[in-house]
């Protein structure tokens, strides 16, 4: 219960961000479904976002990054939405052409 009586610092947030990042990387490495890989990317981006917000928070550190952290997080979210839209379009196109969503089947360019 000692854990609960300590105030939270930036590094607590960074560890959560690290967990999200690593989960995302492992997800990208192991999933065979193209959409599973996409979910891994979302996790990685969110881990990074958590770091930005933690560094920008006045609550966690009085000499923090300030508004820059939140603004970068906003840009990351917007770009993630754009990336997801394109990636999904590619995945659906791939599914239409190959009747499969398995990324291991995407080997047309292999000599």
């Amino acid at each position, binding site marked *: 219960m000692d854990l609960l009586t300590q105030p939270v*610092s930036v590094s607590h947030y960074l560890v959560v961000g690290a967990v999200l990042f690593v989960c995302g990387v492992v*997800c990208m490495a192991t999933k065979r479904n193209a959409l599973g890989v996409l979910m891994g990317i979302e996790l990685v981006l969110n881990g990074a976002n958590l770091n930005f917000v933690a560094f920008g928070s006045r609550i966690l550190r009085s000499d923090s990054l300030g508004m820059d952290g939140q603004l970068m*997080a*906003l840009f990351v979210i917007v770009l993630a*939405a754009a990336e997801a839209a394109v990636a999904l*379009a590619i995945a659906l196109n791939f599914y239409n052409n190959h009747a499969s969503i398995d990324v291991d089947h995407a080997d047309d360019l292999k000599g």
Partner: protein
Amino acid sequence: MMLLAAIQWHTFFFLLFSLLTCGFALAVVFSSNVVRMAFFLTISLGAAAGLFFLAGAEFVGAMQFMIYVGGTLVLLIFGVMLTAHERFISMKTKAGEWVMAAFLGGGLFLLLVRATLMVPQWNAPNLQRDQVAQSEVHDSAAIGAAVSAYRADSLPSSSAPPAAAVPAGKSVYLLPFEIVSVHLLVVLIGAGYLARAKKRNPGNAWQA
């Protein structure tokens, strides 16, 4: 009662949300059913929005809900449902890949946590947390200002008027904002073009 009185409620909620975030992120990794993965991802990212709220970034938290959870993930689930045939719903990963991924992930995690703990300023909690002015953390107007004209967050602490609207070392995000908007527009058009329904063999349509 003594114990309850000593609890830091910020820490309590931080632990709650971080356990949800991390637990469901792990569930995404270890689940093999793609629809369940999408659902776990939703909860994980929703709990991450809770962490944003806790850090005082309410606008980012709401944006996470709106764009990530309500937009991107719905799109993803849409994609999952369009491609959810029996054989693609749960695809098993080979054991060798798991071992590789475990090494990669474990090494990366150790590296990141080591780097985090090495900086003493990051480990020191902010003991003057209660004295942070409400307007400095929960004010979404400051975000709009920082995108358009001036920075409200880095003003000098004396009451003398500052020299410039944008202090040295800080910038206003008008140009990146415009670039992102144009980028988004281009991406939307491109995605619509990529995903549009194509006619197969338009010449022989009558034969089908």
